């Protein structure tokens, strides 16, 4: 399948799935269960709205979701209290699998959701979306409900505020267009067809999630794409246009940190796949600059992309989900 063919057959618009009753019927016919995870850290302004919308629209009115949980990294702004007051199941990431050493990061929350939630499909939605709407969930679930071969569905957002006609550019944010897509184009050109590889909204089958490792920081989305592609190829992916997403803009310096984490993950994967055997050990300190009283000074930050191993390798998980010990051997990525 060519990249253009893949785009044609595996790219959807959320309106393809907006008949929610039909979607619920199909989900029930196929005996699927679906869980939603919202990872949070200080999201008091938006979390109440997300909980109300998803619980009301996708659990009460149209029972597309079987459960959903807010998994928090230690917010100090009442995020969990607000989520709980509107009826969400709330967890501190550190309280899930408490025997493991404690790590903090969005990827940690996503990884622990695999243990905590029961669904055959897990949907991840970032908590900082200002214009939250049920489409953020049903648009991602749709391809997984209708097509067994699809394992991983990624969101993208393509709704210009004003446009006349003809050809117009489309794609992701600054980090995607400056770092991720050029890297994919160089080494994994097929993956460049994922329009927004870094979007924080995606839905994945458990059978895939439990077998991939999770960087706990900035590299989690990149590593997912690389590992799923490495194991299953492009046919496992689909992507859905969810229209517009309104969220906080990040400063360039923050994007630098994000890029540094993503690049670490990428290079580590290259090494793991045997594509860059002579690569020296990489540095984990990012150097940035600031000016104080007309003097330039370097600001160093140690960014280590620690990775959690595939969940299938965790004994508590195998016990909870009745996986035998042999099954973990098919998990290709071991703890780094």
């Amino acid at each position, binding site marked *: 399948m060519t990249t253009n063919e893949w785009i044609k057959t595996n790219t959807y618009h959320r309106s393809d799935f907006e008949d929610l009753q039909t979607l619920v019927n199909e989900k029930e016919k196929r005996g699927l269960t679906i869980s939603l995870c919202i990872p949070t850290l200080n999201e008091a302004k*938006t979390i109440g709205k997300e909980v109300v919308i998803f619980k009301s629209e996708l659990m009460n009115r149209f029972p597309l979701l079987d459960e959903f949980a807010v998994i928090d990294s230690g917010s100090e702004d009442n995020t969990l209290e*607000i989520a709980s007051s509107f*009826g969400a199941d709330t967890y501190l990431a550190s309280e899930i699998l408490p025997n493991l050493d404690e790590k903090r990061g969005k990827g940690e929350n996503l990884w622990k959701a695999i243990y905590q939630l029961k669904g055959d499909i897990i949907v991840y939605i970032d908590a900082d979306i200002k214009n939250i*709407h049920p489409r953020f969930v049903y648009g991602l679930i749709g391809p997984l409900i209708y097509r067994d071969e699809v394992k991983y569905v990624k969101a993208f957002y393509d709704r210009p505020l004003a446009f006349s006609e003809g050809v117009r550019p489309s794609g992701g944010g600054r980090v995607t267009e400056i770092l991720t897509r050029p890297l994919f184009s160089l080494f994994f050109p097929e993956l460049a067809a994922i329009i927004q590889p870094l979007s924080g909204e995606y839905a994945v089958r458990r059978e895939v999630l439990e077998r991939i490792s999770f960087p706990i920081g900035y590299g989690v989305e990149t590593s997912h794409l690389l590992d799923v592609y490495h194991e299953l190829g492009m046919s496992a992916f689909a992507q859905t246009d969810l229209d517009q997403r309104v969220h906080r803009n990040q400063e360039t310096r923050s994007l630098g940190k994000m890029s540094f984490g993503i690049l670490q993950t990428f290079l580590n994967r290259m090494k793991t796949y045997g594509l860059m055997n002579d690569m020296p050990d990489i540095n984990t300190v990012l150097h940035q600059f600031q000016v104080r009283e007309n003097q330039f000074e370097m600001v160093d930050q140690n960014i280590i992309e620690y990775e959690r191993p595939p969940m299938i390798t965790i004994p508590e998980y195998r016990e909870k989900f009745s996986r035998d010990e042999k099954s973990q051997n098919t998990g290709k990525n071991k703890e780094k």
Partner: protein
Amino acid sequence: MNSKISDFIKRFHEDRESYSNVLETLLSSLIMISETAAPTFREHNRARCLVNRYMSSNLLNCYVDELGNALGIIPGKSDRNILLVAHLDTFFDEKVDHTVTILPDLVKGAAVADDSLGLAALATLPYILETYGIEPEANIILMGSARSLGRGDLEGLRFFLDNFKKPITAGVCIEGVKLGRLSYSSIGMLRGEINYRVPESYDWTKFNSEGAIINMNDLINRILEIPTPSKPKTSIVLGSIEAGTSYNTIPTRAKLKFEIRSESDQLVEDIAHKIESLTQEMTSLSGAHVEFKHLARRSPGGTDFSHPLNLIGREILTDLKINTRLTPSTSELAAFIDKAIPAVTIGLTDGENMGEEDESIQIQPIKKGLSLLVGLILAIDGGYTFDN
């Protein structure tokens, strides 16, 4: 009070789980409606949003009519038709941040109270009736009315009342704020604008050429000198003024928006004439174009204090332990009054910062506001509000 109504209120307040689902559904609609901008004359997206909510509740005849009203019908078995109205339009244009924030006790965002909560109540009503097993005999017409505010002058609702082929038994106008409000009469009102504009050929050396702000200020002082008696109650509300662009540029344009309100229609007319004369005087004194524009007009009227609809409204509020606030209205109620249709305006909850971008409403009192709404529907449906 009728037992059907008191039974419902009792169940509504005791069954916490069912109410929790009702509240979630309402808040969910409130978010989606509030975040869809709907300045007057550009309500179409919000109308579509509301109609989609009706459709997902399997209502009949869900559509946006030619004036932009969002309509849906909960079908009954009798010939009676109850019209429930909340206005679609707001004072906020598309550039304003319409993001809603939900906290455990309040909802905050542009126009959440005026009147997104009313619209959310319309969208949630089918779910409430279904949840509590209420099957009204009357047809319940749900209407998000377009072109209500300011220059809109209730055009959407008037269009519907002029063209709906069947008689409307009674109407309920739903406002977000304030709980306890029960309006059954309209006062006389004239809504107008004064536009001050300096022509290109203006001679800035001329005596009195201070610019738009100072001249408009003089005009305001003259307007405030107009006597407004306390009986019949009369007032002039100066609602908005726009002028100027910078610190040191003499402004050439100014706009004053105002309303004259009075229990006496004649007084409204007289005051309007006086203000118009003042604008003409200002034109001759300043050499600028000072234009008086008449945008909307209401005549006083409505039902009596003792009308059964008002009586039962007060009874329900008393039962809910809410102090009744009997205030006249100049909004949608006026369109019903013009057609001699008994109607009331109610508020659903309490709120703050009305008309501001951080307008907020309290969540907890909504339960009583919805009780009042459904109680009134049951009363009208049961025929207890007919004026014999």
